[in-house]
């Protein structure tokens, strides 16, 4: 064996595990499709105020240039933008993933504080003023977003608005129709993508943290801790999740953050099981024994040494977990226990059969969006399972 081949082999072997998984993942078409749809959703969610808004992007009144859209951006809009930019910047940064993640979280937190202090959109929002100004000929120049209706713009200036099929109205265009309040469905769906994405990520994040800690302690200590922990897991598994969610939401009121927390604390039991099983296997291994012998603190043994080795099943479960969190939010909204005025796909879907007639556009488009998102995460989870599974990899090479 020459030195050249030896060094090649070493280089191949030294590739970090996360990169190996990523490469194996990107080879699969299903993962690509899933990631593509999630990427599109992220872009739509980030730029939703620019995509659908009643406020003009740019207008000239009496020679004065102004941008009502930027004026009306809320703190949340700015945070989404900032988080998106941070993600792009940090993506190229050559640091370990967990460092990047922590840094990203810190940056987002800082920007959230800054945005809440600085951004002060007007509290009284009159959506129809621009249309009235335009009709009166006061606007010299005006440029609207691609969909010139906000999510909560109920088109009060047009008489008798309500459920309208796509492209039914003559004086204005609603590509996907309007809902029962007269708001544009396309606009509501664009703004609702934020809720779907946010719920998916944050609720799963919370569940992941709780599940990892409890499962890790159960697996590492076993014995009495394990027995008590398993009873806890069994309790949470035997409560019908949907029912617990219903009672939480019904009794604690409706807020998006509350919903994230609730979905998070009802979904952790599965992760705890996975982590426990992995840790039970790992705790007998030499490197863990070595870490214990070195006198490392428990936190370090559990999360720096053991967790990265038991990550594979957790990753797969996370992807499916995001899908079910999105589904849970949609279900709650569908049952009329979701957010009240804010747009949500499930709530739009609910309106499809609420009136005496069946409004197909309220079923097909929001329902299709829920389906596509859930499907994307499931595809990703499936591909991830194959990518981290040593058996399928071996078969592939053979």
């Amino acid at each position: 064996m020459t030195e050249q081949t030896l060094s090649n082999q070493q280089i191949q072997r030294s590739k970090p595990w996360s990169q190996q998984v990523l490469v194996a993942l990107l080879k699969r078409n299903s993962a690509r499709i899933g990631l593509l749809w999630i990427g599109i959703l992220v872009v739509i969610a980030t730029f939703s105020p620019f995509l659908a808004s009643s406020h003009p992007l740019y207008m000239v009144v009496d020679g004065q240039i102004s941008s009502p859209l930027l004026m009306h951006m809320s703190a949340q809009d700015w945070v989404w933008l900032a988080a998106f930019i941070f993600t792009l910047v940090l993506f190229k940064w050559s640091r370990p993933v967990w460092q990047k993640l922590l840094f990203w979280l810190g940056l987002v937190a800082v920007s959230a504080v800054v945005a809440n202090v600085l951004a002060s959109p007007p509290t009284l929002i009159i959506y129809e003023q621009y249309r009235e100004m335009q009709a009166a000929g006061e606007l010299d120049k005006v440029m609207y977003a691609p969909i010139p209706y906000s999510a909560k713009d109920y088109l009060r200036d047009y008489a008798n608005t309500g459920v309208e099929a796509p492209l039914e109205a003559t004086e204005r265009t609603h590509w996907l129709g309007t809902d029962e309040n007269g708001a544009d469905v396309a606009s509501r769906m664009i703004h609702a993508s934020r809720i779907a994405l946010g719920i998916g990520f944050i609720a799963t994040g919370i569940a992941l943290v709780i599940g990892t800690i409890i499962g890790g302690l159960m697996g590492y200590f076993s014995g009495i801790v394990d027995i008590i922990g398993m009873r806890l897991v069994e309790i949470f598994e035997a409560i019908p999740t949907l029912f617990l969610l219903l009672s939480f939401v019904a009794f604690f009121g409706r807020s998006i953050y509350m919903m994230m927390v609730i979905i998070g604390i009802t979904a952790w039991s599965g992760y705890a099981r996975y982590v426990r099983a992995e840790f039970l296997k790992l705790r007998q291994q030499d490197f863990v024994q070595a870490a214990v012998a070195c006198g490392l603190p428990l936190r370090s043994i559990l999360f720096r040494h053991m967790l990265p080795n038991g990550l594979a099943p957790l990753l797969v479960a996370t992807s499916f977990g995001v899908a079910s969190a999105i589904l849970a939010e949609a279900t709650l909204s569908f049952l009329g226990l979701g957010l009240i005025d804010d747009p949500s796909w499930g709530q739009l879907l609910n309106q499809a059969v609420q009136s005496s007639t069946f409004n197909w556009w309220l079923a097909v488009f929001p329902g299709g969006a829920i389906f596509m998102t859930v499907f994307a995460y499931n595809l990703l989870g499936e591909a991830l399972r194959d990518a981290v599974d040593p058996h399928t990899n071996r078969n592939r090479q053979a």
Partner: protein
Amino acid sequence: MLNYLLRRLLLMVPTLLGITLVVFVVMAAAPGGISAQTLVDGMELEPQSRKALEDYYNKLYGLDQPAPVQYLRWLNNISPVGFERNVDGTLGSFSLWKGSDLGTSFRYGRAVTDLLAERLPITLLLNLISIPLIYALAVGIGVQAARDRGGRFDVSSNIFLLGLWSVPSMLAGVLFIGFFASEQYWRWFPTGGLMRRETASETFLPLFASFTDVLIAVGCVAVLTLLFMQLLSRLSTSNRQWLGVVIGAGLGYMMALNLYGQWFGVLHIVLMLLLALLMRSLCNLQNLSLRLAIAGSLGLGLGLGLAAQLGVTFLQNGYLLDRIWHLVLPIIALSYGGLAFLAKLTRSSLLENLAANYARTARAKGVDEESVLWRHVFRNSLLPLITVSATLLPSLLAGSVIIESIFSIDGMGKLAVEAVQTRDRELVLSVTLISGLLTLFGYLMADIAYALVDPRVSYD
């Protein structure tokens, strides 16, 4: 075994206590919580009578007591052994056989036991029809996919099943109602409920005008079913595909005709093409039993249609047909998700066992592939299916919450939503208790089945 059973049953008690405790804490910790005020709110009452009503509720349900006391009182009520409860709400003497009482629903003003006795059978009916259906179809599809590993059926069914699994059941329910039950499109099925009001006074089986009608109807169904079964089992693959195309196009044309009443249009072509493709791929299935199932359902549907065309009229549809007619859409909407999940599981479990050493040994001995699959591999692959059956029941119960709300079926799922929305403490706790009990019972059954099927597992 008996020892194990007893231990498991005893372990259920703390778990059930934990479940109700979690739900009770949620209710008690909520802003507003449960108090007599929330019950009286919204009623138009004079101050005195409002006060009197509040006092009455407080006394009756003990709502003015601290939360832990309320929970203990509730526990005392449901446990068969405990203190007797007097009419005025105070506790009486200790008794060993006072019987358990789930209390009275705030909102309905009726005993919770009565309400549950009314609602639970309906939900169980939905679930008990779904589970065998799911298993039969899932095993069929899974076996076929595993046999054809890497082939066209395997790859396409894999994507299709994953897609099916991702369809939210409320979307399926809404689309079913919208397209197959509403007046705007095909009005084939009822929009909700479990039976028409007239049916209550009708016979169990359908009633025909004369005996010849019965003969014609049965004959049509039998002839068509047998014909399709013969055709689908005997014909070669390409002929089967053509048969499928013809049947699908015919059905598509009839659907369009049914909707529009025009003789021809764009919709006709689209529906004919769609259904022709669907039927072509269905007839193309390599699995004989799946094909026979399709032939059977085709024969039944078309046979009844043909009989109706021949002038057979039902005097009364009867209880049985009416019930089936109402159950078709909810059952499909309830079961497709579990079906997709189980079919994928069957496939992966079969594949794992087909590659196992004992399967290779069997092949090396000269056992043919069919026997290897059914006599050696299939039995061993059933184990994960049994494990999963435990989680199937809870997910079906959760599914029936959605399905019952969409199809307005008065089952336990709908009761749960109503109870939560009206903050009906007694009802919420009881529904939690019952569904937790059913879930735990499902886990126990799965574990027992596991021991029965796998001789390696023993609980002694």
